[in-house]
C-alpha cells in the first residue's frame, strides 16, 4: 500500500490492537489507502472539520464504518492511514501530532517520543465531565476551541432536556450486557449513559465495578426490565451474542419479562452527539410516554442503528 504523505496540519493516531482492515468510503477528491487496522486506542472519538481538510482521532470501529456508519468516518477518510501500530509506520507519515490512547504499547509511545514527535495521550472518558474535558482538550490541540465549545454546549443542552423529561419516573432496571458473562458496572461510560437516560444499572447496584462478571443465571435473577447490547458484535464473529440463543434467556425474553435494546457501537465510542443519541434512545425506549410526539433529536438522521432486537 503506498503511504500517503499527510498534508500540513494533520495528525496521525494510533491505538492498541488488531482490528480488521476495512476500506472506507473515500472522501471527495482525497485519496487514501485504508484507515488504520490499529485504532480504538482511547475508545473515544472526536470529529473535527478544519481548514477544508479533516482531522480525526481516537476510536470507533472500522467495521462499523461502512455505508451504514456515521458521517465521522467519511470526514476522516482524507486522513493518512497506517496499517500497523508501529513507530516506524507512524514516523513515516511525518505527523505534526500523534494522539495515542491508554492501551497503546508503551514501547511505541516511548519510541515516538524519542523520535521527537509531538505525542498527546488520551484517557478513557467515563463521566460526562471526562467527555467534555476531552472534547475541549482536543479542540485546544487542534486550535479549534470555539468549535469544541459549541459541541459541548449542544450536548449539555440535549442531556438537560432528556433529564427534565425522565425526572420523576419510576426508574427502570437495566443491564448492559457485553457477553462472555460480563457486564458494565459502576465507573464505566455505559453506566453513565444508562444513568443519564434515567435507568437503574442493576449490575452496578449488585456491586459490579468496571467490567465485571455476570452469568446468564445472575442476569435472570437480577430481573432487569431492559438488556442493552452494543452493536459492535453485529456481523462480526464473536460469541457475545451467544446469550440470545440460550433457552432460559429466550424463554424469559419471549415472555415479555425483559426488553432487548441494541445501541450503535460507534455512538457509544463517540465523544460527540452520538453518545447523547444513545442516552436519548434508551430514555425513549424506557419511558415512551414522556417522549410522545417529540421527534428524535439525533445528530445524523437515517444513520442510527439503535433499535430493539428480538432473541433468535
Amino acid at each position, binding site marked *: 500500500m503506498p503511504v500517503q504523505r499527510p498534508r500540513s496540519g494533520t495528525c496521525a493516531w494510533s491505538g492498541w490492537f*488488531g482490528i480488521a482492515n476495512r476500506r472506507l468510503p473515500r472522501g471527495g477528491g482525497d485519496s487514501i489507502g485504508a484507515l488504520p487496522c490499529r485504532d480504538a486506542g482511547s475508545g473515544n472519538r472526536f470529529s473535527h472539520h478544519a481548514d477544508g481538510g479533516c482531522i480525526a482521532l481516537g476510536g470507533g*470501529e472500522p467495521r462499523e464504518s461502512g455505508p451504514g456508519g456515521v458521517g465521522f468516518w467519511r470526514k476522516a477518510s482524507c486522513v493518512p492511514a497506517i496499517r500497523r501500530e508501529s513507530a516506524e509506520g507512524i514516523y513515516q507519515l511525518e505527523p505534526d501530532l500523534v494522539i495515542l490512547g491508554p492501551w497503546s504499547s508503551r514501547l511505541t509511545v516511548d519510541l515516538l517520543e524519542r523520535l521527537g514527535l509531538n505525542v498527546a495521550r488520551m484517557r478513557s472518558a467515563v463521566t460526562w465531565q471526562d467527555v467534555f474535558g476531552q472534547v475541549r482538550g482536543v479542540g485546544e490541540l487542534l486550535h479549534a476551541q470555539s468549535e469544541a465549545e459549541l459541541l459541548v454546549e449542544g450536548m449539555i443542552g440535549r442531556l438537560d432536556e432528556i433529564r427534565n423529561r425522565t425526572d420523576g419516573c419510576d426508574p427502570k432496571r437495566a443491564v448492559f450486557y457485553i457477553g*462472555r458473562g460480563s457486564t458494565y458496572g459502576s465507573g464505566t461510560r455505559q453506566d453513565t449513559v444508562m444513568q443519564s437516560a434515567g435507568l437503574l444499572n442493576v449490575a452496578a447496584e449488585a456491586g459490579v465495578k468496571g*467490567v465485571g462478571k455476570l452469568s446468564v*443465571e*445472575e442476569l435472570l435473577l437480577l430481573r432487569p426490565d431492559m438488556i442493552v447490547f452494543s452493536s*459492535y458484535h453485529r456481523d462480526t464473529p464473536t460469541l457475545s451474542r451467544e446469550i440470545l*440463543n*440460550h433457552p432460559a434467556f429466550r424463554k424469559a425474553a419471549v415472555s415479555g419479562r425483559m426488553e432487548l435494546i441494541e445501541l450503535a457501537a460507534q455512538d457509544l465510542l463517540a465523544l460527540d452527539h452520538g453518545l447523547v443519541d444513545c442516552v436519548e434512545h434508551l430514555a425513549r425506549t424506557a419511558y415512551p410516554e414522556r417522549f410522545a410526539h417529540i421527534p428524535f433529536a439525533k445528530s445524523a438522521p437515517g444513520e442510527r442503528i439503535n433499535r430493539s432486537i428480538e432473541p433468535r
Partner: protein
Amino acid sequence: MKARVSTESRFKTGEIRLRVRQALMVHLRNPLTVALWIALGLSFVGSLSLGSVVLNPLSMMGEHVDPMVRLVLWEIRLPRSILAATVGFSLGIAGAAMQGYTRNPLADPGVLGVTTGSAMGAVLTFTLGWASFLPLALPIGGIGGGLLVLLMVMLLSGKDAGVHVMILAGIAVSSLAGAVISLTLNLSPNPHAGMDIVFWLMGSLSDRSLHHVALAVPLMAVGWIMLLMCRRGLTALSLGEETATSLGCSMRWLRRLIVIGSAMAVGPAIAVTGSIGFVGLIVPHLMRPLVGSDPGRLLMVSGLGGSVLLLWADMIVKVLVFNQELRLGVVTALLGAPFFLHLLIRIRREVP
C-alpha cells in the same frame, strides 16, 4: 448368504451386549465403584444447589415456585451439572485408557491430538462466523475437528502401528492443530473475537444449555461403551503385547477401539466446554492405589472419579467470587500442575 450375515451380525451384537453387561456388573459389585456413584450423586445435587444464590433442588418440585428460579434451575444449572459429570467421566475414562494402552503413566487423552483438534475445529467454526448463524455450530465444529485429527492420526500411523508411532503421529497432528489455533488468533478480525477465542480455550461450563447436553452426551456415551469394551484387552496388554496376542487379544482391534473410543468420548466434551486439562492425567493416578495396577479395572472408577473431580472444580468456580469468571480449565490446571510435579518427582525417585 443373507441369513448367514444376519446371524453373524446378531451374534456380534449379542457379544457386545454381553461384554458391556459383564463390565457393568463387575464394576457395580465393587464397593469403591458404589462409593464413587454415591459421591457422584451428592456432588451432582451440590452442583445443582450452588450458584449465584443457593437453591434447594427438592423444593423446586412444589407448585409455588418463582418461575424465574425454576427456569434457572432447569435450564441453566441442570445442563451445567450434567455436562460437568459427563465431561469429567469422558476425560477420566479416556485418560485411564490411554495410560493403559501406552503403558505410560504420563499419557492423557491429549496424546492423540483429539483435544487440540476439537479446539481447532471450534475455533475455526467461530472465526469463520458460522457460530453466529447456527447456535450449535461451535460444538459441531469441535466434534468435526476432533474426528478430522483422529483420521489424520490413523492415516499417518498406518494399519499395524505400534504405540510409539501412534503417539508420534498424535504429537505431530496436535502441533499442527495448535499452530492453526495460533494463526487464527494472530489473524483474528477484531480484539473481541481474539478474546473470545482465548477465553473459550480456557474451558468453561457456564451458560451451557440442554441443547449442548443433547448434542454431546450421546456421542460421549458411544465412546464410553467402546472404552469399557477394552477392559479385558487392556488387562491382557499390561502383560505385554506378545502375551496379550497369545491370550487371543487382537491388538489391531484393541487399538481401534481405544483410539476411536477416546476420540468419541473426549472430542464432543472439548467441543462443548473448551479445553479442560489435567483431569485425564490426574484421576487414573488417584484411583490406581485403590484398585491396583490393572488398567481394565481402572476404567470405570477413573470415569466416575473424573465426574466427581470436575463437579467439584465447577463448584469451586461457582463459589469463588472474582470480578471476572474463573475458567474451569484454569482451576483444573491449578489443581493438576502441582500433582503432575509430584508425580514427576516420585517417578524420579523410583527410577534410580
